[in-house]
C-alpha cells in the first residue's frame, strides 16, 4: 500500500513513522528541506522536496499509484489545493485533509460530495474539545475514548496504592467486581505496554485501560476507587480556537466558566462572542491572578495556550493552588512521556487526535475507528468482522492471534459481549481490539477479507 503524505510537520512525521514501521510504502512531500532531512534520517521513507499542491511534484511522488493522500501541512489552503490537484490527477486515490479553520466547519460534507472529493476532513480541534469533555466527565480518567457511537467507552486510569485492585490477579477480578462487567484490556507499566493475561497482577502505579458500557461506567470506576464528583466550575487558560469552542460547549451545559487570555484584543473578541463566560485579561501563570479568581474552588483547569511550556507550568501551578484537576494541551510528542513524571496526568493533544482519525482510515478491512493509546505504543480498534475474514466463525482461542493483541469487546446488535476464549465472532459483529504496535500488521491480516490474497 502506498501512502503520500504532504507536510512533514509533527503530524506528518509521526504518521510516516508509524506507517513505515508497518512496512507500507510512504512518500513524504514538504517544502522545507530540513524537515525532510529529519524524516529521511529517522525512517525508511522516500522524501520529495517541493510543494505538495504542485501537480508535477505529486506526479513525481507517484500519486497515480497511491492509495491514500494525507494533506497535513499547517495551512488549510495548501491542504485543500493538494487534494484538489490529486482529485484531478488520480480520482481513485483516497484523500484525507486536515482543515482547522472554523469557517470551514459547515462545509465538510460538501468537500466530500463535490470537488475536491476529500473523503475525510480532519479537524483535530473538534476532536480535542470532545476529548476534554470526556475527561471532565469521567472521574480519575487519564485517557478516554468511545466506540460504537459512545455505547462503549474505554478508559485509562492510574491505579492508586490504596486501591482495592492493587496487587490483584486478573483471574480473580470477577469475584471482586461482582456483577459489574469490567474488562482490563491493557496496562501501561513503566512506559511499557502490556496486554495482560489472567495470570498478570495489577500493581500500584499502573495505568489501567478497561472498557465498559456507557451506563456501567461509574460502577466500573468505583471498583477502581474512582468516584464521581460533578464538575461545576471550570477555568480555561488560553482563549484560542480550542478554548473558544470549549467555552461554547460548557455554556450550553450551564457550567460556570472563566477564561484567561493574554491578548487584550482577543479578549474583546471573546467577550463579545461568549455570553456567560467571564473573560479575564492576564497571564495564566500569574499566581496572584489565579488566587484572585479563587483557583482553589475550581473543579477543572484546562490549559490551552499555544505555548507548551506555559500550559505545563500553569497546570502545575493551578493544581498546587488547589484546583481539583488539570487538563493540559501538549503538542510536542517528545514531552508526552515526561508528563506522568512531573505530575500531569490528563493530557490532550490535537496532533494525537489528528493521528487517530488518520489511522482509522488507513487500517485495512472495515475499521470504524482507531485510537492510539498513550505513548503511541498501542492502538484500540473498532472493526466490523467481515464474513470471509479469519476472525469469524471460530472460537477465539482457536484463532491464531498475533502476540500482544486482545479482543476486548464484541457488539452484536443491541448486545455487548465481553468475550472469553470460547466466544465465537459472527459476521457483522463489531469487535473492539486492543493491540500492541507490533501486532497491528497481524491484526490487519485477520480482519481483512480473504479474497484480497488472490
Amino acid at each position: 500500500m502506498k501512502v503520500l503524505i504532504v507536510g512533514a510537520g509533527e503530524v506528518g512525521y509521526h504518521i510516516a513513522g508509524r506507517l513505515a514501521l508497518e512496512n507500507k510504502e510512504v512518500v513524504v512531500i514538504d517544502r522545507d528541506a530540513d524537515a525532510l532531512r529529519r524524516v529521511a534520517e529517522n525512517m525508511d521513507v522516500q522524501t520529495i522536496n517541493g510543494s505538495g499542491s504542485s501537480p508535477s511534484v505529486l506526479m513525481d511522488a507517484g500519486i497515480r499509484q497511491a492509495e491514500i493522500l494525507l494533506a497535513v501541512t499547517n495551512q488549510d489552503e495548501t491542504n485543500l489545493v493538494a487534494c484538489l490537484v490529486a482529485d484531478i490527477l488520480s480520482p481513485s486515490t483516497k484523500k484525507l485533509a486536515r482543515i482547522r479553520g472554523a469557517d470551514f466547519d459547515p462545509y465538510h460534507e460538501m468537500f466530500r460530495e463535490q470537488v475536491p472529493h476529500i473523503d475525510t476532513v480532519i479537524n483535530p480541534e473538534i476532536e480535542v474539545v470532545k476529548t476534554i469533555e470526556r475527561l471532565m466527565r469521567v472521574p480519575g480518567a487519564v485517557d478516554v475514548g468511545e466506540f460504537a457511537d459512545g455505547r462503549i467507552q474505554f478508559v485509562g486510569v492510574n491505579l492508586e496504592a490504596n486501591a482495592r485492585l492493587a496487587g490483584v490477579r486478573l483471574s480473580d477480578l470477577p469475584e471482586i467486581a461482582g456483577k459489574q462487567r469490567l474488562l482490563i484490556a491493557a496496562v501501561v507499566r513503566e512506559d511499557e505496554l502490556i496486554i495482560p493475561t489472567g495470570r498478570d497482577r495489577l500493581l500500584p502505579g499502573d495505568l489501567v485501560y478497561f472498557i465498559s458500557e456507557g451506563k456501567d461506567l461509574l460502577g466500573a470506576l468505583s471498583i477502581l476507587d474512582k468516584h464521581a464528583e460533578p464538575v461545576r466550575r471550570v477555568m480555561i487558560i488560553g482563549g484560542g480556537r480550542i478554548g473558544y469552542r470549549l467555552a461554547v460547549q460548557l455554556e450550553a451545559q450551564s457550567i460556570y466558566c472563566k477564561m484567561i487570555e493574554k491578548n487584550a484584543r482577543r479578549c474583546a473578541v471573546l467577550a463579545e462572542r461568549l455570553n456567560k463566560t467571564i473573560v479575564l485579561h492576564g497571564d495564566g501563570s500569574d499566581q496572584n491572578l489565579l488566587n484572585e479568581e479563587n483557583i482553589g474552588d475550581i473543579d477543572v483547569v484546562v490549559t490551552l495556550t499555544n505555548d507548551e511550556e506555559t500550559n505545563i507550568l500553569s497546570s502545575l501551578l493551578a493544581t498546587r493552588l488547589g484546583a481539583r484537576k488539570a487538563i493540559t494541551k501538549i503538542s510536542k510528542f517528545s514531552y508526552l512521556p515526561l508528563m506522568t513524571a512531573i505530575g500531569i496526568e490528563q493530557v490532550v493533544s490535537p496532533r494525537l487526535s489528528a493521528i487517530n482519525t488518520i489511522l482509522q482510515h488507513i487500517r485495512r478491512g472495515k475499521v470504524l475507528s482507531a485510537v492510539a493509546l498513550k505513548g503511541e505504543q498501542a492502538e484500540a480498534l473498532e472493526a466490523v468482522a467481515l464474513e470471509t475474514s479469519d476472525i469469524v466463525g471460530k472460537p477465539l482461542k482457536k484463532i491464531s492471534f498475533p502476540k500482544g493483541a486482545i479482543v476486548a469487546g464484541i457488539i452484536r446488535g443491541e448486545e455487548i459481549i465481553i468475550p472469553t476464549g470460547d466466544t465465537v465472532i459472527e459476521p457483522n459483529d463489531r469487535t473492539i481490539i486492543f493491540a500492541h504496535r507490533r501486532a497491528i500488521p497481524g491484526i490487519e491480516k485477520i480482519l481483512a477479507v480473504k479474497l484480497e490474497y488472490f
Partner: protein
Amino acid sequence: MRWRYIVYIVGALVMFLGFTMVVPLAFGLFYTDQSVRPLLKSMGMTIMAGGVLFLLFRKERTASLNQREGMAIVTVGWTAVGFFGALPFYFADGHWELVDAFFESVSGFTTTGASILANVEALPKGLLLWRSFIQWLGGMGIIVLSIAILPFLGVGGMQLYKAEVPSPVPDKLKPRIRDTAKILWKVYALFSFVQMVLLMLGGMTFFDALCHAFTTMPTGGFSTRNASVAHFDSAYMDFVIIFFMVLAGINFSLHYQLLRGRPLAFWKDRECRFFLGALLVLIAVVSWDVFSAQIYNSIGGAFRYAAFQVVSIVTTTGFATADYETWPALSQHILLACMFLGASAGSTGGGMKCLRIMLCFKYCYKELFSLVHPRAITTIKLGGQTVSEEIMRSVLGFLALYVGLFGLSTIVLAGFGVDFVTAFGAVAATIGNIGPGFGAVGPVENYALIPVPGKWLLIWCMLLGRLEIYTVLILLVPEFWHK
C-alpha cells in the same frame, strides 16, 4: 555506539558470504578440480564464524541505526568480507601468502581488479569463478544485496545504504529501501545476463562468458586469461564489453528509468551527458594520437583499441586489450587523468565521479564570477536544481581528501622502495578501483612485486576508494569513538 549490534550484523553478513560460496563450489564440483577442498573448507569456516557471531549477539537486535553505526558496520563488514573472501585463495595449492590472498580478495570485492597473480590460467576453475563472483557481489554492494535479501536489515537499511553506495546524494528509487535495493540488483543481474548471452553468441565458452559478465557490470576487471580481453582478439567481443562497461558507468537509477520506458532520462541527466560526452572526446583524441604515432595501421584498429582502453579506464574497469605503456605520451597522460575522473555517481564505477568534477568546475566558476560581481548572489545549479551548500561542502571535502590521500599514499609507497612511476600508477589505480596502473604495475604486469607493507597500503587504498573515503576515514576520527 552499540558494538554488539554492529558485530551481530557483521556476523550476518559473513554468514551470508559463506552461503554464496556455494556458487563457485558447484563449478568446482562440476569440473572436479583442485578448488573443491579449499572452497569447502573456507565455506565451513565462514559460515561457522558468521553464525557464531550472529547467534551470540542475536539479542542485541534493535529497530534503528544511526549514521555512525551505519558507517562502522559498512567498514567493518567490508573488511571482514574481504578477509573471509580471501580464505579460498589462502587454502588453495600454490603457497599463497596471507597478504596476497587478502589483496586479491579485497581487489575483487572493491571491483579494483588489481591482481598479484602472474599466471591466472593456472588457477582451478572454481577459484577463477570465485575471483569473478566476488567482483560481482562487491560491484552493486554486498550490503545493498543483504538489504534486499535479509529481512532484518530493513529498518536501519537506509544508513547502511548511504554508507555503501558510491554517490554524494544517493537516490531512493522506491519509498522503501528494500525495494530500492531489490530494483538495483535486478537491473544489475539482468544486464549481466544479457552480456553473458551476447558474449556466448560471439563464441566465448559459457565459463569465460559468465566470468567476464561477472566482472564487467561491476566495472571490476578480473579476467580468466593472462592476456585479459586481448586473449580473445575479437572486435565483436571488444565492442560488447565496451558497451556494457559504458552502461555500468552510468547511474543505475537512469537504467531503472529506461526499463520503465523513459529512455530520455539519459539525455536529461546532466551527469550522464557529461560522462558520455567526455568519453567521446577522449576516445577521439586518443584514437587520433595512436593512429598518427603509427601504432595501428588502420583508423578502425586505432579506434577499437583506443575506445576499449579509454572506456576501460574511465569506467574504472581495468580490462586490457593493448599495452598502453607503449602508446605516445599524450595518450598515456590522458589515460592517467582518466583514472581520476571515474564514472558516474550511483554507478558501479570508482574514481572521483563525474558529478563531483562537474560540481567542482561549477564552484570554481562561481568563485571567479563573484570576483567580477562581488555583490552578486549566486547558487550552483545542476540540471535546473539548486545544489545545497551542504552537498557542495561534502563534494569539495571529498576531492581534497582524495587528492590528499593519493599524494600521501604515493609518498609512503615510494618509501617502501617502489619507483616513482609505479608508486604513482599503483596508488591511482587502487584508490580509483581501476586495476592496472603504470610502470611495474602496468596492464601486462601485476602487483606481485610490490613489497608486503606496500600491499597492505594498497588494500587500504582500495577500501578507501570503494567506500568513498568518508565511510572508512571516519573510523580514524577520535570523536567517532567518544561516548
